[in-house]
Structure formats: C-alpha cells, structure tokens
C-alpha cells in the first residue's frame, strides 16, 4: 500500500460538501496546524470545468448535456455546481438533501427512490448510492490533483450529523465502501466544529474554558440544525473533553430562511397583481439572500430593493421590483426562526390530519429556539444539570449574521437567569462555513495522538426490545421491556458481552430484534432492564439475523446464543450473536430495508 501522507476531512453536508486536508507531518499539538481547503473539480455550463472550494451536494440526471469529466457517474449525472444550477430549472431530475433521506426510517434507504416522486422514465437512485456518488466524485477529483497519493490511501474522516443513529452511520460507511474508500472514520459535526475552534482560536482554548464547564454547540447549516453538549472535565491533571449529549435530527436551516424571505417578497409582488413563476421565485430567493446579507451587515440601510430581471430578452421591460425591509428580516426571520420563548415551551407538532405523505420529515415548527429548549430540558434529568451550559459555540452559515447570534444568546440568557445561573460565555474564532471540514482534518491529527481528543462514544443509548413472559391473554400484547445494550457515552473500541441473557435462535430462520434509542436517558447502564418504555424511547431500524447452519447443525435446530455489543473505532455500533457452545459469532444487520411501520 502506498504511504499515507495526508489527513483528509470531508464535510458531507446536506447542501454543501467541503473537503480539507493537512499533511500528517504538520500534526503537532499546540501549534495551529496548516489545514488547507481542497477545491473540488466540478462541471460548469458550456463544457467548462472549475475547481471550487464548495461542492453543492446535488445530483442532476443529464438531459442532453455532454459529459466533460471522464468519470463513471459523470456520464449519466452531473454532480456539484452545475447540478444545482440545472436542478433549479428542471426540478424533476434533481437529487437534493440525500443525506437527510439517509436517516429517514420510513423508507428503504437502499432502494432507488430519489428524486422523490419523479416521473417514471427518470432514473432514480437510492440515498445510499447518492452519498457514494459524492464521495466518489471527491475521490476522483483528489486523485486527479494528487496523482499517486490516492485518496483511498489517506486517512479520511467523514462528518455526520450527531443525530445520525447507528443504522445511518452504517450506511455512510457502506457508501464510502461503494465509493472505494474502505477506511473512513466518522465524526459528529458539532464535535468537528469544536475541534475547529480548538485549532483556530486565537487564545489557547484552555484559557477560555474551565473544568466543569458545559459547552453548547449550535450548528445551523443549510438544511439541518444540530445541537451537542460538550463537558470540560479533568483527567490526569489536564483538561479533558467529553461530548455528553446530542439532539435530534431537525430538518431546518438557512435555506428555509431564504425561502421564507422569497415568499415575503413574492407576496408583496402578487399584491400588486403581478404573476410570479417558479423560476422567478428561485431568482427571488437569490436576490432576497443578497438583500438579507446587505441588511444584516450594513446597519445604516432600512430597505433594499429587490429586482428580478425579465425572463425574455427584454431584460428591463420584463423586470419586477419590490423591496425587502429591515422589518421583514426582524419579523419573519428573527421572530420566525429564533422567537423568544420559555425553556418549558414545546416545539409545535404537526397536527394536520392523521395521514401524512411520506417525504422528508421537515420540522413542523420553524422555531429553532423551541427545539433547543426541548433539547436542553431533556438534559436536566438526573443528578447532572447539563441543560444549563456555561459557554456556546456557534457553527453554520446562518450565524454569520450577528442578529441571529445575538437573539439566540438573549434567549438562552433569559433561561439561565430564570434558573439563577450565570450568563453564557461565547466562544469565538471559527470560520463558520468551513469549520466542520477543518475540524475533521484536525480530528485526524487528534487520532494520531497529536492533539486533544473529545471523548464522545455512543451518542445515544441503545436498547433491545424484549417481550415480557406473561400468560397469553387474547387481544392483549405482552408489554415490551427494554434491555440497554449500549449506554450513552460508551467509548469507541469497547466490546461488551451482555450478561445473563440467552436467546434461542432457529437456524435458517430470520430472527428479528426490536431496537430502540434514546438521547435523554443518560443514567441507564449497560445490561440494565427497563420495564416500561415511555416517550423517551424512539424506534430505530430493527436488527435481524439469519443463522447459517454450522458444525453438524442443520436448519431448524435451536441454538443458544448470547449477545455481544461492540463500539468500533470508526464510530459505528455492531451487535453480535455468540454461540453458547463452540466458538461462533454472527453479526446482526440493521434492517434498513424494512421501513418502520
């Protein structure tokens, strides 16, 4: 195998993919390592190519556009910048937000279903394949630039939302394998942002936080919001970091804001009896984002005109004009996405009708503050009060605007004051839209033993559903108990046998295990049995296994097995069946194919 030269971080974002790298030789603690952005080659219109620092995570099935990059996927699909551009014009052929589909438990993530609801004659690919296409594109582009130092020979870290469950993590590993990147390590995005802060911050990070502090990482990206809590503790006389909690996957982000503003502008135009087409709404969205940035960054303006040019060659005659006011931003964006609320407030659930079409589970409530309130409240159970953080780290393009940062700080401080706690401290100094990718490279350094590492372990606790043995009663399902097989925070590289539990499995038959997760039951211990499943448990992909016949056993025989749970070094969870007699071990597979009913 070729020599490993670089640590590579890939931020596989919902809307944008960013790649960074650093030579392994530059990995040394203390110094700010030189982490460079890797511009990814992408196709543009008119047969041109260009290396761009950001690769939009979009795939477009070619209509008649001739391929210009000579890579496998490229003959049929466009990936990146031009895909996004063409996709706005022909939405039926565009695959977007593939990553969010990857953690949707209501669909089979290995089946070709994207673009969702596209016409029959269009090619569809699975969310898994789509992710592998992005990674393969990055691999091709890397190999073109670095020649013999192929990407598959480098140490690659891929970031994922902290809220990804074990099955979704497995799928990312599978996607990487499909893209011929067999050895990748996973890293949660908020952790990556924190690593980025460690490596980029002007003041040494140890002077900015102290033992016992809890840091809230708020990551609002283009399409998703993610929360994590990192505790500063002490180990061997030095500060240590531990990720103690992660939030749920919330499909809500900066793109929603631009869209909201576009609808505001559209309503204003339609009040003047002007008809707006879909294309013009896209243009409006671009213009509104620019107007938003002007209003947010230049304090002296109260109104910015928004003009969309005529579509035909009469560019002036067909133009439409309106304006975005400072009030629009404050009312719709700040109050809409970051409303003032109490810590006890619940996000508004979607109550419309019982039947809901399967699609991406967009957040019903746009209020990020209410989602945050629920997350923090859930961390206050037990003896540790993680729900009142001492410091906050912002990440994601949305927080480039001071107005959003200030509002969020205001809201959190209100909660802290009401609880009699100190005001929150703001950790600054990261480049908000590249932090995750930079942090991923830094994590590579940390894994080399050259930097501080956040101890995280399993982000959520996992449980096996076990039916209670009770006399059969017609029409009554025996209540389900939950056996904790991985407690929250179990460290990577841990292998544990579940004691005292034996399951009889029939050879040749598929055995199904119900599987649950929880991100707010920090107290549960490994192998603990929980008698009652309350709303803190969430369904996740079930586990299944079909025992092959072995050593004189034949189909139909009953085998006694115990369970073993492994948290791998690369950040995935694996469950095994161990035969009580003999030295046999089988892996249970996540059932991503059967959607949860």
């Amino acid at each position: 195998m070729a020599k490993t030269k670089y640590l590579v971080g890939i931020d596989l974002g919902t809307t944008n993919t960013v790649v960074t790298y650093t030579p392994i030789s530059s990995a040394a603690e203390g110094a700010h390592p030189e982490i460079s952005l890797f511009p990814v080659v992408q196709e543009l219109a008119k047969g041109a190519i260009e290396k761009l620092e950001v690769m939009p995570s979009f795939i477009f099935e070619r209509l008649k556009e001739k391929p210009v990059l000579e890579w496998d996927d490229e003959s049929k699909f466009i990936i990146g910048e031009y895909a996004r551009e063409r996709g706005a014009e022909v939405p039926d052929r565009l695959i977007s937000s593939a990553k969010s589909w990857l953690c949707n438990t209501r669909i089979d993530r290995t089946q070709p279903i994207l673009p969702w609801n596209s016409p029959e004659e269009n090619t569809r690919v699975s969310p898994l394949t789509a992710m592998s296409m992005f990674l393969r594109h990055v691999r091709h582009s890397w190999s073109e630039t670095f020649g013999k130092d192929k990407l598959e020979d480098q140490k690659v870290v891929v970031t994922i939302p902290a809220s990804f469950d074990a099955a979704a993590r497995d799928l990312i590993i599978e996607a990487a394998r499909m893209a011929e990147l067999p050895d990748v390590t996973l890293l949660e995005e908020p952790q990556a942002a924190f690593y980025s802060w460690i490596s980029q911050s002007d003041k040494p990070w140890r002077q900015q936080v102290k033992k016992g502090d809890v840091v809230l990482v708020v990551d609002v990206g283009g399409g998703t919001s993610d929360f994590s809590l990192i505790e500063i503790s002490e180990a061997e006389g030095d500060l240590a970091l531990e990720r103690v909690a992660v939030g749920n996957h919330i499909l809500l982000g900066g793109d929603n804001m631009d869209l909201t503003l576009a609808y505001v502008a559209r309503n204003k135009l339609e009040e003047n009896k002007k008809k707006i087409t879909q294309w013009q709404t896209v243009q409006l969205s671009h213009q509104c984002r620019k107007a938003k940035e002007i209003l947010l960054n230049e304090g002296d303006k109260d109104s910015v005109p928004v003009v969309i040019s005529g579509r035909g060659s009469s560019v002036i005659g067909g133009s439409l004009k309106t304006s975005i006011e400072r009030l629009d931003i404050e009312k719709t964006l700040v109050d809409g996405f970051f409303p003032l609320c109490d810590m006890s407030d619940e996000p508004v659930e979607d109550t419309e009708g019982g039947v809901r079409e399967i699609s991406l589970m967009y957040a019903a409530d746009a209020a990020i503050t209410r989602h945050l309130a629920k997350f923090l409240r859930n961390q206050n159970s037990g003896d540790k009060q993680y729900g009142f953080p001492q410091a906050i780290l912002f990440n994601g393009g949305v927080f480039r605007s001071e107005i959003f940062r200030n509002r969020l700080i205001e809201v959190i401080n209100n909660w802290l004051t009401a609880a009699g706690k100190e005001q929150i401290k703001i950790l600054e100094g990261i480049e908000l839209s590249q932090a995750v990718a930079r942090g991923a490279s830094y994590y590579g350094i940390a894994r080399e033993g050259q930097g501080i590492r956040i101890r995280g372990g399993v982000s959520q606790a996992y449980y096996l559903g076990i039916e209670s043995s009770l006399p059969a009663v017609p029409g009554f399902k025996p209540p389900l108990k939950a056996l904790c097989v991985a407690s929250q925070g179990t460290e990577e590289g841990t292998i544990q046998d579940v004691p005292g539990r034996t399951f009889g499995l029939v050879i040749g038959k598929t055995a199904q295990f119900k599987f649950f997760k929880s991100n707010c039951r920090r107290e549960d211990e490994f192998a603990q049995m929980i008698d009652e499943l309350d709303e803190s448990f969430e369904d996740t992909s079930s586990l299944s296994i079909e025992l092959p016949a072995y050593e004189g056993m034949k189909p139909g025989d009953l085998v006694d097995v115990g369970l073993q749970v492994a948290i791998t070094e690369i950040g995935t969870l694996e469950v095994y069946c161990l035969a009580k007699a003999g030295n046999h071990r089988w892996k249970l597979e996540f059932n991503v194919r059967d959607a949860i009913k």
Partner: protein
Amino acid sequence: MKKATAFFTLLLSIAAAAGVYLIYREDIPPTLTDIEPAITLFKGLVAEQWHTPIVAALSAFWLLTLLLSLAVLFERNKVAISGPEKTNENQNELQQLREQLAQATTIATEASDKANQLLTQNENLNAQIEKFAVSSSEKNELVELKNKIDELQTSMKTRSETADKAEVELKNLQSEQKKISEEFAAARNKLEKTENDSKMAKREAEKTASQLKNIQSELGSKSEEVVSLRQQLEEMTHELEAAKANARGGTNAIPPAAYQILYLFQKEGRLIDLLNEDISSYDDETLGGAIRPIHEGCRKLLEDRLILEPVLNEEEGSEITLDEIDPETVKLSGNVPATGPYTGELIHRGWRLKECNLPELVGGWKGNVIAPAEIEIS
C-alpha cells in the same frame, strides 16, 4: 545416343553369333577349354530334340537385330533431328521474354501500389486539412494553428517529393517498357524466320504481346494518376494558403475566451440583453431600478473572474510627475514636451487586467451560441 546404342547392339549380335558357333563346334580350341563344363551343362540342360528350333529362333532374332542396328547406324534423317533443336532455342528465347514480362509486371504492381499509397496519403492530407479548417474556426489558437501549418507544410513537401519520385520511377518504367517491346519485336522477327514456327510458340507470343499491351495501358493510367495527384497537391496548397490567411486574422478568427466572456456577462448580468434593448421608452426610474441586478451581476464578474486594477494609484485630479513613460501604459495629451520629466493632471487612472480566472474549457468552445434559446415546458 541412338547411333551408339545401334553400334553396341551390332557388336553384341556379332559376339552372340561367335558364341553359338563356338558352342556347336564339336571341338573346343585349347584356349577355351575352361568353359567346356559350362557348355556341357548348357547342352545337358535342354533336350536334344529342342536344339534345332531354339537355334533357328535365335538365329532369326539375331538377324533382325543385326539388320536393325545396321539400319539405325546408317540412317540419315535431317528433319527429325534438326527440328527439335531449333524449337528449343525459340522456347529459351520465349522463356527469357516471359521473365522480362514478369519483371515488368512486378514493376507495374509496385508502381500501382505506390500510386495507391500516394492516394491514401493524399486522403489523409485532405482529412487533415478539413480537420484543420474546422479546428481553426473553432479553436482559433494562433500558436497551435501556426504549428499545424508548419507541420502541414512539411508534410506537403514530403508528399510532393514522393510524387516527384513516383514520376521519375514511372519514366524509368516507361523506358524499360520500350526496351522490352523492342526486344520483343526482334524476337518475333526471329521467330517468323524460323521454319517450324509451332502454333504453341505463336500463341505464347500473342499472349506476351497482349500482356505487354496491358502493361502499356496500365503505365498510361498511372501517369494520368500522377497528373491528378499533382493537381490535388496544388489544390491543397491553395487551401493551406487560405487557412494561413484565416489564422492571420480572417473573419472566423474568434478566440474561445471572447465567447466565454460574452457568455458570462450575459449569464451573470444579462448585459447583452440590456445593450440590445431599446431603452428609449422607459422612464429613468424604471431604468434605474432594472439596472441594479445587471450592474451587480456584471460587477461580480469583474470581482471574481476578470480582476482589474488601476494603472496609476494616485487620486484622479491630482498633479503627478513621471520621469519616463511607456506609451502602452500612459497616454499624454496637451502640451507634451519632447522629453521627460512629464508633469500634469491625472485625468483617468487607467485599468489593467490583473487576473483572468475563466473556467477551463475542456473541449474548446463549441459553436457560436453565447446564450441558448430557452423553452419552458409546463
């Protein structure tokens, strides 16, 4: 050969007669007593009563043999002996002619091969010229073009050299063919003079003549081909001249960057639409508002891709002094002294293109469309 056989046979028959005489002479001379037992054996072998018929038969055979040998020995037949000898001579001559013919045919085949080669080369050249013409209108990269022209010119030179060579060879062939026909004529004369001109020889000669005729006509067509090749070469030279003229700045010489810049200004800023629109009917307010996105888009293009910087950084309107100027960079006007230093008011700071970050065109610019027609299907 025949005479020798006849003579030998004669000797044998005389010897046989002598032998028989010896056997049947009752007493054997003392010098021959050694063979007496053999004779006795011979006599005992055959019964007495058969001796006379056998001797009679043998005598008859002997006489026949003797007569025949004598007849052969003294026979004289002029026609039978001299005829075949002369035919042999003629056939040898024909054989030589055939060999010469075969040589001539090989040469002719070689000539036609060469002509074919020339034809293919010519076709290649044509294809190259065509490709060249297409690429010159599409790519218009002067340097590449010039290189190509040089390449083409050298290949043209070699082509015409080959053509000349072929012509010389053809001439050689023609003279050789003349020689062959002369020799053939002489051979025919000789043949005609021969008394026993066999029909076979005649036919052969006719065949040879027709073959020679074929070669002659083939040679004729080859020389025609050479003429047409020459013409084609001339045509190609014309085309090359035209392509060269194009490269120097003809009507089709548009660099791809020109297309790309127009395309980008239209795509990012709709500049082409704006400049082509009749703006006289719009009031200033409409015009002003509509210009905003256009100005913004075009400006972004200048910021990102066509990065400009002022030639001089001093304030416009201020007085500046320059010791020496480069007329490409600074333009002087008004009362300009013959030599520096030059002092005056900076009217315009000038612009220079600092960076040009156009996207890489993988296959050059195809066609001449800078903004495609758009159709929306609902």
